[in-house]
């Protein structure tokens, strides 16, 4: 019984850690996509899911977009579509690009440090 519990913890702990790690970099991922071009919420989550295999509920993206907007890293505007419902498009701001640059540098530094550490394995 205890052995089963231990193997379950060993199985779920890395998965949980990876999931937390991915969620932690979601801000960075959103800024990367918006730097490429403007996106609306559904399109953004679809692109993120395709590229990252991120297992989060789609609704999670809206509070994040809301926070990035409040921090003035992105802006939004409603666009009327020829067919269908209007869409709320998000664009990156100059401050957003600067923040993304800082995140990029931080990520590269972390990557270098981790690569060195992983050589010890």
């Amino acid at each position, binding site marked *: 019984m205890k052995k089963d519990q231990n193997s379950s913890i060993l199985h779920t702990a890395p998965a949980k850690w990876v999931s937390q790690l991915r969620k932690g970099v979601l801000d960075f991922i959103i800024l990367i996509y918006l730097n490429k071009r403007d996106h609306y919420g559904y399109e953004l989550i679809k692109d993120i899911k395709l590229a990252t295999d991120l297992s989060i*509920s*789609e*609704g999670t993206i*809206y*509070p994040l977009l809301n*926070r990035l907007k409040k921090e003035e890293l992105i802006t939004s505007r409603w666009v009327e579509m020829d067919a*269908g419902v209007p869409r*709320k498009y998000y664009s990156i701001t100059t401050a957003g690009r600067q923040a993304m640059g800082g995140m990029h540098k931080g990520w590269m530094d972390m990557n270098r440090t981790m690569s060195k550490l992983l050589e010890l394995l």
Partner: protein
Amino acid sequence: MIPTFSDPLSQKLWDGYFNRVKRIMRRTPYNIREEMLHELQGHLAESISESRAQREPDCVQEAIERLGDPEDYLKPMITERLLDHASGNYSLRSVILAFIYSFSSGLSRFIISLILSLGYITAFTLGLTGIANIFIPDKAGLFISPNEFPSLGIINNPSLYGTDILGFWFTPLSIIIAILMYMGLTRLWRRLIRKAS
């Protein structure tokens, strides 16, 4: 914004989901609520149209499951917004609403709010004791005795707890400290909730 459904069950699922969204967001400003509602409706409509399920209600249900429970993703956002508002104008209403939302929006937010609620209770008790001191100066205050631990608050038999050392100054001092505590706790709460997001 609302798609036309051929099956009444699909309409029921759609209405049920957006009634939950409206209920959660009922205390947020009208323009923010409407904007979020339109954005989520657009999202769900597009998600339904791309669903591969055979039956229409299954398409709606699958799209709803992918979008997630509105309680899970909206409550933390509303708590943050309320705290932003509260730390700008220190509105007691926003603080109380933030408590209502944060107690049911995840364990970390629950723990943070629980700890800070003790601070708020202390601040309010101090403020109320300060006001009580105006009406019952003999029984409300800070009492110090050489043999007892200092007592702060409203005391029935003050002679047992020593003498009130602040006298007239107790009311203004306690009210000022209570206000500073309230302001500091609100700002701290906003900072902690942001870190927890």
